[in-house]
């Protein structure tokens, strides 16, 4: 397993001095300004910040949905200009296709980018087994609970065997009990796949629990304020959240975020 971590070379994301702007009423507004960061292969990175800090814009930039106005983002030295199956995306809302069964949702990606020997059906069956929903293979998404739907969403993104998994507040709509279980399961999946994960959230506990590194963002315009290494031992579980170090790290994030939230709040009210 350790060897695998060492040999993992794909899934390196380099964000090179990018800005993302949009125009609103003839005014150029920067969602992000002059951001640089390197995300290493197999790393679990959380982007943490108050709402409106441009963290989703950054993720959309990495996904290739939005192109930066200057600078560039690259995956394994290849510039990202459009979405590609090398990067799996898990969205905030439940975004399963309602007209496809659970199994068809998962096999959709593999069926349109055939690679390897496994058939799309085999891949779907394998991932359904992994998320523990094999019994629901032929159910439609609206027959599943929110947590189950989001598990299928993760399986669907992984079914293309991407190098990077991008997640945009994926557990935001779940109740806190389900969310904790989902977080623990996500870490298991991550260990299994040794995949690079970029996880956007505004939940401090979630970020500290999951990440190797937290990129703390400031608001208006969005910048990376602090690149915080999370040195909590792995595997992490319920006990982790009670440890002294966890509480310390949470404290650090908390004070930084609070500063930003107040700044953003005041700026909006000017």
């Amino acid at each position: 397993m350790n060897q695998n971590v060492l040999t993992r070379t794909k899934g390196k994301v380099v964000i090179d001095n990018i800005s993302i702007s949009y125009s609103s009423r003839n005014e150029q507004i920067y969602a992000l300004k002059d951001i640089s960061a390197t995300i290493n292969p197999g790393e679990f990175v959380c982007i943490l910040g108050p709402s409106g800090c441009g963290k989703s814009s950054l993720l959309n930039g990495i996904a290739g949905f939005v192109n930066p106005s200057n600078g560039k983002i690259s995956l394994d030295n290849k510039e990202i200009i459009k979405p590609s199956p090398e990067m799996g995306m898990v969205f905030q809302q439940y975004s399963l296709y309602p007209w496809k069964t659970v199994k068809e949702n998962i096999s959709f990606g593999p069926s349109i980018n055939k690679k390897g020997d496994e058939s799309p059906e085999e891949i779907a069956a394998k991932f359904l087994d992994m998320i523990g929903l094999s019994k629901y293979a032929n159910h439609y998404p609206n027959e599943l609970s929110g947590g189950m739907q989001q598990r299928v969403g993760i399986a669907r993104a992984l079914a293309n065997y991407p190098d990077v998994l991008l997640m945009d507040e994926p557990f935001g709509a779940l109740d806190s009990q389900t969310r904790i279980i989902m977080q623990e399961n996500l870490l298991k999946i991550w260990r299994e796949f040794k995949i690079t994960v970029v996880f956007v959230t505004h939940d401090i506990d979630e970020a500290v629990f999951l990440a190797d590194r937290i990129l703390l963002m400031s608001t208006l315009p969005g910048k990376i304020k602090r690149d915080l290494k999370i040195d909590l031992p792995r595997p992490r579980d319920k006990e982790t959240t009670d440890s002294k170090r966890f509480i310390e790290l949470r404290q650090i994030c908390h004070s930084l975020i609070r500063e930003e939230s107040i700044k953003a709040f005041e700026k909006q009210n000017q």
Partner: protein
Amino acid sequence: MTLTNFSSKSNFYFKSFKKERLMLWELIRINSKTYTRKLISIILFFLLWEFLCWIDFNFIINFVFVPTPVEVINAFIQFINDSPWVHFKASILRVIGGFISGSILGIFVGLLIGSSKVLEDLLATPLELLRPIPAVAWIPLAILMFPDAESGMYYITFVGAFYPILISTQKAVENSLSDRLMIRVGQSLGANSFQLFKDIIVPSSLPGISAGLVIGMGNAWFCLVTAEIIAGRFGIGYKTWESYVISEYPPIVMGMVLIGLMGAFSSFVVLKITDSFMPWRTISKDGI
């Protein structure tokens, strides 16, 4: 590499099985209620009609010359005894022919102008100019433009079916295209434009297209009387119009009722067929 226990699997299976049986029972119970209500409403409707004729109701609306339900039933019995199948067959063929050609062309053109700005600019304006023209107004041209009366009649029912199907398809496609999340999901999974169209835009437009087909089927029947004015000796619409010309009132109402019944039935069939393409949909009206 199964991830552990979100819940015991056998327990899940048992629960869903039990739930399904319960739902089936509920379904029968609820439906028997709605069927009773529907039956009562139909009986009340006929009683009210008979009553208004019986008292010779005449205030703004005049019921003096309106045939009673009993007279209409008698006219129907006479019609049934007098080789009715040629009439049914002629009318059904005209409606089905117009509906099928209207569906094929309406869905095809609707998909095109719904998904392409260029094609919309090129096609939508003339189609929009022709749309408000009522079927009756097409009669003279239908006679002049088509080689025989039969194809002219097909054209009239086609016009009725085509437009609702066209507009619903176009609007449904435009709606699906503006659902950015669905498109982004497809792009991030690696779908190209054709796959996005086939696997995402078309299925998510199906509910809208289905509504268009149901209205289109109704409209084809709507236009039947108009179509059968053109010529001919057969058809339910022709029978209705002929009775009016010779001032025989009960068969008029009988024709109207027959067209209503057959229109409602065929719309129901279309609805059921299109629903079978969308097994994922669950419609609940309890939320309001």
